[in-house]
């Protein structure tokens, strides 16, 4: 079975793009990805596209900008893991041997929906009781604070670090650093999460080109390999430890086994941090810190740029922004640039092994409904 190689990546700046349409927004990312791969759309044999709220046929609307015809296009909705799922399908298409060059896209326009909460299933009992996505992470945060004596000021440090990184990323929605005081004094959304501990609603698109090893040899001498591509859906288990997200634990085990790596091998992580508490939980899940020690790892500086294991060097969902369907692909773009030493002012020092992670939630009785983990190496 051929390994899958990432040969190109591109994205738009994430943020508010008033009046943007799915087709042209996505096409900007696709153009950048193809240019970086030295390929044209005539070389692309199949395409996948992650999108949540953009309506019918987003992938075709993007490719229509180029006049592409006939190739198979698969659109994927898997909540916030839609982009990660689009890449997962593209990897499987390469591994099957049926295709040599596949384009994986992600696109989302949230500003058109106004600000505020994302729509959820109106028949879900938790939703009928008034749960929403910030509140579901706030429940995790309060439990973690109860068990591990975490303070709001310590929680704010996650956002402060993300915004330090985002300020160095020209693709990020936010370009100014924040202080702990800025974060804790921002408007309360769902106790203990303030507005600046929540990711913004964003517009944006990202795209990557993946190839078989044979096809990759024709377009790059510095390949980035996909060593693991894992998709899981979580299991029904109402009584859960809210500080130990089991959907990601399952995906982590499969990804570490598939790539034959462990936490000690990683040089960076792009993890799903829609709300500040999530990054601390995922430090622990991915084995960077013992359960309850996530804040110690953060305050040690190990996860900052220049630290032992930078986490979310792009600024993550909190600072780069979170256009749902595009996020999982943007993480791959970030890992691709970092592993090739092309990440500019936010370049990490050691760059051989990267892990990316997105989850999509939430439905009553499950930790999350979807989760992808990818491991990439030089």
């Amino acid at each position, binding site marked *: 079975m051929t390994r899958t190689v990432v040969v190109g990546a591109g994205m738009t700046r994430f943020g508010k793009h008033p009046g943007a349409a799915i087709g042209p927004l996505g096409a900007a990312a696709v153009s950048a990805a193809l240019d970086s791969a030295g390929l044209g759309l005539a070389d692309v044999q199949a395409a996948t596209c992650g999108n949540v709220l953009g309506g019918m046929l987003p992938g075709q609307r993007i490719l229509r900008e180029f006049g592409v015809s006939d190739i198979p296009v698969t659109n994927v909705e898997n909540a916030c893991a839609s982009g990660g799922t689009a890449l997962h399908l593209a990897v499987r298409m390469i591994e099957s041997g049926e295709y040599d060059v596949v384009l994986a896209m992600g696109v989302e326009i949230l500003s058109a929906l106004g600000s505020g909460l994302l729509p959820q299933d109106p028949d879900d009992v938790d939703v009928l009781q008034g749960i929403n996505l910030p*509140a579901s992470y706030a429940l995790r945060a309060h439990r973690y604070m109860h068990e591990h004596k975490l303070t709001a000021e310590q929680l704010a440090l996650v956002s402060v670090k993300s915004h330090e990184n985002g300020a160095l990323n020209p693709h990020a929605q936010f370009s100014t650093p924040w202080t702990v005081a800025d974060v804790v004094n921002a408007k309360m959304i769902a106790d203990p999460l303030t507005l600046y501990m929540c990711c913004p609603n964003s517009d944006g698109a990202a795209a990557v080109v993946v190839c078989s090893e044979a096809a990759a040899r024709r377009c790059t001498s510095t390949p980035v390999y996909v060593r693991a591509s894992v998709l899981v859906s979580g299991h029904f288990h109402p009584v859960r430890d809210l500080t130990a997200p089991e959907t990601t634990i399952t995906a982590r085990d499969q990804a570490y086994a598939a790539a034959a790596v462990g936490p000690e091998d990683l040089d960076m992580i792009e993890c799903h941090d829609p709300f500040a508490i999530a990054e601390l939980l995922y430090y622990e899940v991915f084995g960077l810190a013992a359960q309850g020690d996530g804040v110690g790892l953060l305050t040690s500086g190990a996860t900052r740029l220049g630290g032992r294991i930078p986490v979310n060097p792009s600024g993550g969902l909190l600072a780069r922004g979170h256009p749902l369907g595009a996020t999982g692909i943007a993480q791959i773009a970030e890992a691709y640039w970092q592993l090739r030493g092309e990440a500019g002012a936010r370049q990490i020092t050691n760059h051989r092994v990267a892990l990316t992670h997105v989850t999509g939630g939430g439905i009553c009785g499950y930790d999350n409904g979807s989760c992808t983990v990818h491991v990439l190496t030089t």
Partner: protein
Amino acid sequence: VTDYRSYSGGPLVDEHAEPPRFVGSACRLCGAIAFPPRRRCASCARADLEPAPIAPYGRLYSYTVVRIGRPHEMTPYAIGVADFPGGIRVLARLSGWAADGAGSPIGRTVTAGVADPPARTGDPRADFRLRVTERDGSDSSEAVRA
């Protein structure tokens, strides 16, 4: 009658019990108990269920106060998650607890409640509450760990 809602039966709280109790579902085949009640058993996937009372006292596991809600929702409101004996977890709005000025209610004993009449929607899935009690949960053998 064809009804494909997640639940379309009667009240989810037995208000006549003392104290009031949640009413879940029990599988007639494998015995698995669930709240909210299910249309199919989550353990054996069979659709042969009967109402089942849940033990009366639970322990609050976590909570939040929602300050920004959906357009039709009055804010702020508190939501809690509580564990009841028998492996039952309930997520619901809290009653009997003032959000502002109070400390964390995690670990407090809770029981089943129903929204005050003006706030009732008529949908039993939206109208049950977790009522924070003054009862000291620390010596309750019925309540699960905090």
